[in-house]
């Protein structure tokens, strides 16, 4: 699994911003993770703890918010939210059409961080 690479990227971005803002310690990092990501929050934190040892971000808490899966029906121009387990059977709530496209629910985004 790719926890290690994702977590390393998070740490790199965090340390770069910390370096630009005269930070002595990173306390909390607010992350938005797509619902479609198979990474488990707890494991992202474990990997982060491991990688961040000896850095300004050591012991920082990852506050992870999941970005819901949003689909769009091009026929109705309607966007709607669904759970990951409903994805395979998703239809447009208005026209019941099954030709829908993924709008959001992927990726990893660092919103902001709390620092000292």
């Amino acid at each position: 699994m790719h926890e290690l690479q994702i977590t390393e990227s998070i740490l790199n971005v965090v340390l770069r911003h910390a370096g630009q803002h005269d930070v002595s310690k990173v306390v909390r990092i607010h992350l938005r993770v797509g619902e479609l990501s198979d990474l488990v929050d707890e494991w992202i934190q474990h990997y982060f703890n491991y990688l961040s040892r000896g850095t300004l971000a050591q012991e920082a808490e990852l506050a992870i918010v999941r970005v819901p899966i949003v689909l769009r029906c091009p026929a109705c121009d309607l966007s709607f939210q669904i759970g990951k387990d409903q994805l395979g059977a998703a239809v447009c709530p208005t026209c019941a059409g099954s030709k829908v496209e993924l709008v959001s629910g992927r990726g990893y985004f660092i919103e902001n961080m709390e620092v000292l």
Partner: protein
Amino acid sequence: MSDEVRLIDVKEDIQADNVRVAQGLRDRMARSKTFLLNLMSSPGSGKTTTILRTIEELRGRYRFGVLEADIDSKVDAELIAARGIPAVQLRTGGFCHLDASMVVQGLDAMDLAALDVVIIENVGNLVCPAEFDTGAIRSVMILSVPEGDDKPLKYPLMFSVSDVLLINKIDYLGFSDFNVSVVRERALKLNPRIEIFEISSKTGQGVDAWADWLSRQVGTFLNG
């Protein structure tokens, strides 16, 4: 201490670096006129055999190369090189996927001027490769009949990011409860634009239709 806490806005997509490298790679491939195809699937679904069949079908038209990703072996690259097809083995050293930088590294070891198409055989796994842009022009996934028709439900992201679904090993259909129309329906729900071909890379059945599609894509790319 808590009153000293400051909030710093970051607003960064952590995959932005990879996306930049991938975009740079697409620009470079457009200049060198080399079509880059990313092939993803589970282990044992027939990636290498499908690559060999596809190249066999189109060898008269285009010059192919293969970039092999494997955790720690050269078995697939040797198979391909034995057919006289230029192949580079990328050892991902335990990595579960390829990202754009790794692809760049592999392509640097190839003579792109002498190639029209490079097929990336991604690491065998339906989860991680779906998350990383390789810089390819098109992404293709294989689902083989013995894996079961429930896979679109279990690995939705893979089906969402692929341009083509190859349903492989259709010669096994008689021995299995795999329902092709259920897979088609589930895959199209996740990705209405996905092209679906039913093939057997072992017997060659259906490979011509898939190869025709690929040939048209490559033709448009090279002449565009």
